[in-house]
């Protein structure tokens, strides 16, 4: 018998809950990953591939002890995106990643979620001064990285695809 378990913490912000990915997030996730808006995060992909993405995000938590949360609205628990840490084969170091589903952009939700996830990672996972990989054409994400206080570090690559590497501040420096 081997017990694989991980405490996926619940984080609350003003408008959001970051929580463990669940099977009932699948419809919203699959719709996002089927859309062209997912082109910067490995999409578009079909529903079977989206399900594998859900499986992999759970497995990432079990393998690493950290991973991507589902971003849900506090008011009704509706899934509106994903945020969290990724460090699989093909990554230089752990990354803070985010995406917000269609219809929820432009409200600062990704900023609110990324700020909370980043603070939690520094406090609980020993992940501080992390990077974000950002496609140079992803102007929304670049703007968010700037707003989070990250700085462009270099042109790099993740899983073989060119990406800019943005460095987040060490949180001690944020006071």
């Amino acid at each position, binding site marked *: 018998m*081997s017990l*694989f378990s991980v405490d996926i913490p619940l984080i609350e912000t003003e408008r959001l809950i970051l929580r463990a990915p669940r099977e009932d997030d699948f419809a919203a996730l699959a719709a996002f990953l089927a859309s062209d808006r997912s082109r910067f995060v490995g999409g578009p992909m*079909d529903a*079977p591939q989206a399900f594998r993405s859900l*499986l992999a995000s*759970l497995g990432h938590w079990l393998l690493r002890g950290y991973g991507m949360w589902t971003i849900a609205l506090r008011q009704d628990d509706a899934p509106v995106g994903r945020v969290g840490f990724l460090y699989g084969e093909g990554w230089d170091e752990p990354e803070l990643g985010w995406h917000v589903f269609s219809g929820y952009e432009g409200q600062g939700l990704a900023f609110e979620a990324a700020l909370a996830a980043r603070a939690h990672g520094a406090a609980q996972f020993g992940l501080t001064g992390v990077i974000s990989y950002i496609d140079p054409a992803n102007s929304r994400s670049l703007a968010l990285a700037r707003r989070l206080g990250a700085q462009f570090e270099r042109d790099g690559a993740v899983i073989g695809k060119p990406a800019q590497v943005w460095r987040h501040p060490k949180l001690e420096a944020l006071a």
Partner: protein
Amino acid sequence: MTGTTIPTLETARLILRAPQESDFEHERDFYATEAARFVGGPKQPHETWRMLAMMLGHWALRGYGFWALEDKATGTYQGRVGLWFPYGWSEREIGWTLMPHGQGKGFATEAAEAARAYAYDTLGWDTAISQIAAANDASKAVARRLGAHFERIYDDPQYGPVEIWRHLSPSDLVNGGMEAYA
């Protein structure tokens, strides 16, 4: 808390245990070659790592999944056998993939019998299939040894046309299935 308890099973020659990160290098090397062409390969290393994560996520979401196979005699990784049912799959499946060094020893049959018994006796499944690439003769031979029979061609949205093999049912096994002749 999110997690899963992955039982350890034992057969005459094998331990079936939870997949772990140290299995990755074997799978990565296997998936780097054409030898993996019948099981979704070749894959890039990052895709293979993701597959390992997916296998653990499948346990967490479904309560069953793939076990890693360890040869009792040497403690080395031989491949994996498991119970698989992601979104879009035609039916609940018994699957097997052996590393090249684990092939030709009857390991897949031995482990799949244990996985089938777990599916029927512990999980309460009443049937199971295996999806097998038409040209994968070694895998079809395993299916035959398990007493499964070819049922139909299924046009899988990801893999294209594959053969569906139907396993012996729990009652076939009780009433003189292959186990009875073993």
